[in-house]
């Protein structure tokens, strides 16, 4: 092929979320509530990637994400990159960073934690970013990646 063909077509305005681990695509969609909005969305998955074996990409028209929304992605797709598109041009690139503190996003894994009984905004400090481990500000128990539930 003489020219590079995009597997997922370009958008005029909006956000491209690239380098999502393919196995987490649908989780990202669900966390961001993309299954519940009326914007035009295109996505591709199991695409070849140099960085990841299989990546996924999502393009959301006319949508710009707040930082706390991006934080939610960082917890399950730390490799994700955001391209902010205006008039077919990338005007800004954002990497998603796992924050040091996670507020109001994750459910505490401990069934005896007060946050699972009362209406309390959960708070965790991130004790490990490699093997994701969150320490609950309240019960002080660790919620690890395999037990992670997004609120």
């Amino acid at each position, binding site marked *: 092929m003489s020219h590079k063909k995009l597997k997922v077509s370009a958008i005029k305005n909006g956000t491209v979320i690239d380098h999502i681990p393919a196995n987490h695509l649908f989780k990202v969609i669900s966390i961001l509530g993309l299954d519940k909005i009326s914007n035009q969305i295109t996505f591709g998955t199991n695409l070849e990637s140099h960085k990841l074996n299989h990546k996924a990409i999502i393009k959301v028209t006319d949508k710009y994400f707040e930082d706390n929304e991006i934080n939610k992605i960082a917890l399950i797709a730390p490799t994700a990159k955001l391209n902010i598109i205006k008039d077919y041009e990338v005007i800004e690139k954002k990497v998603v960073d796992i924050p040091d503190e996670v507020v109001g996003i994750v459910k*505490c894994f*401990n069934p*005896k*934690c*007060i*946050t699972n*009984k*009362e*209406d*309390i905004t959960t708070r965790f400090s991130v004790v490990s970013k490699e093997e994701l481990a969150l320490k*609950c*500000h*309240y*019960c*002080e*128990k*660790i919620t690890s990646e395999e037990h992670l539930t997004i609120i």
Partner: protein
Amino acid sequence: MKGKSLVSISDFSKDEIMEIVRLAGDFEANPGQPLLNGKVVASLFFEPSTRTRLSFETAINRLAGSVVGFTDSSSSSTTKGESLKDTIKMVSNYADLIVMRHPLEGSARYASEVSDVPVINAGDGANQHPTQTLLDLYSIYKTQGTLENLNIFLVGDLKYGRTVHSLLMAMSLFNPIFNFISPEELKMPEEYKMFLDSKGIRYFEHSEFTDIISEADILYMTRVQRERFSDPIEYEKVKNVYVLRNSMLDNTKDNLRILHPLPRVNEIHTDVDENPKAYYFEQAENGVYTRMAIMAAILGLK
């Protein structure tokens, strides 16, 4: 410490811990100090804990303070469905200080955030019980004359026992050597060993409860509980292995003292009780002076 809640032992610095220990000694020497005269302390026990509650209420009474509260959640508005937040908000308008015991973990931290007055955690589920830790430290200080450079043996359920975990964290400020004696199923969790590694504190793990205790300055016994074992046969195997008997104390150091958070079942044979190295009943008494010290410090009265 004035105005500060005590939720977790790590809320207090080394200096603050030493100040509590000093104050506890002061109250033991002069127990009749009516510092809480005219003050109201709320004692909110969402689950029963007779020893802890009586210890606190004795401490409040000795300081001439008044107590309001309940002894289990069946006699509180919780049974009507009131949230913890609302209960704490309401009580913090009445009282100068809240002492709270609650079965849910993290409840004390949350209460301290919604309360207008300081909260003392008297146990939140399996999480923290800092006044127990401070009374343990006072007991160790009183019997050894120091908290520094001691050889501490922890025996029994080291996996689930919150008292041993909090004691380990607190004693780590004082350059100890730890020896852990437990059945395989109830070993000290990895996270605490990693914590000790990061601090460069030496520890040794043993599965046999033998004459290695001859090195000990403090022997801290805990209960091995049947419900911790998924296999009842495993419990039967170990239940009589971690029992301290008087004959085992023959070759131990003169300064050795035996501590236990109580209640005990069979892990310390009653023949130890008469040994001058047995210290668990005095330890419970020390709890009253320690809680007097904590309340006086938090209310800024000392």
